């Protein structure tokens, strides 16, 4: 058989032809018994296919799919958002502030330790002088007084 119009029959039944082409097929069917027979067979089969049982996946499949997806490495945008969440930012901020405070305290201690070292150095350098005057343990101001004692004594004289 095989009429040239046969190729249009499935699309005709599926409503996929333009109005003009559908009208042409309709007109053809009135005069072609082969196409009428094929069209009836196609129509019958389509109806039967609609009535076939549909496969229904199990509820366990959802759990498996979501578990596998959860286990995948997160994409970058998601990771960035996780980092910028307040619950993640608050502890990070606390750590930063604490670290800054610790740095300031350590810095101050280091400065005072350096000043102490300078004093000790001055004492060492002027040990002989200090020993002479038995003033070991005086602070730098006292050392200055000791160094200029002669002048002070002159100025202090009546």
């Amino acid at each position, binding site marked *: 058989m095989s009429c040239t119009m046969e*190729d249009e*029959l*499935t*699309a005709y039944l*599926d409503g*996929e032809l333009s109005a003009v082409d559908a009208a042409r097929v309709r007109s053809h069917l009135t005069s072609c018994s082969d196409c009428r027979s*094929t069209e009836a*067979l*196609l129509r*019958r*089969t*389509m109806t*039967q*296919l609609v*009535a*076939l*049982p*549909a*496969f*229904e*996946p*199990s*509820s*366990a*499949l*959802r759990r*498996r*799919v*979501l578990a*596998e*997806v*959860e286990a*995948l490495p*997160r*994409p970058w*945008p*998601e*990771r960035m*958002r996780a980092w910028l969440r307040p619950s993640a930012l608050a502890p990070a901020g606390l750590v930063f502030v604490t670290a800054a405070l610790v740095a300031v305290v350590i810095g101050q201690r280091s400065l005072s330790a350096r000043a102490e070292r300078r004093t000790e150095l001055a004492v060492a350098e002027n040990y002989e002088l200090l020993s002479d005057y038995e003033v070991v343990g005086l602070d730098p101001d006292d050392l200055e007084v000791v160094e200029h004692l002669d002048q002070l004594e002159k100025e202090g004289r009546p």
Partner: protein
Amino acid sequence: MLRVAAGDTAAFASLYDRYHRSVARFAHRFVQDAGKAEELTQDIFVKVFRHAGRYRATARFKTFLFRVAANHCLNEVRRGEYRVTHVVEEGEEGRPVEMPAPEAQSPERAVEGRELEATVAAALQRLSERERVAFTLCRFEGMAYREIAEVLSASEAAVKSLIHRATLSVARAVEAWQAGARGPARSEA
């Protein structure tokens, strides 16, 4: 879908809930086995999640989804990972179930329904891969020729031809089964 691309699993769960039956049915038409169809469905959805960034909003999501599904099913079947069987599983708790059609209430209708299902399944296996994809999407998922053309990266004219050949082939197989199954019964009665 943009949220899924950004890794939003809640948005992905919504997509899954909406489309998993369609994908599972599609996969089942390929492998005719409930367990294997579920494996394929799982793989397909994980692929969709991983490659969500490739989705372009200009395409319908369903088209994108079935493009992934069709490619995955064809690749797996070609690799021989999934040998086609024609076993209809007995329903158990937590296991996939073949839902009976409303018409198949009586035992005779149930048997007839299973035989028709097996006939269609066998006819599908004789189709070319592209015919099978086009036929399944058209007949069981109700997709338009234009959408199927997008899934297959083909012209609408090509899809029209694929669907016609496939439908006619299945129709002839069903006709032959009916002639064999019902013919003698009628003559006996």
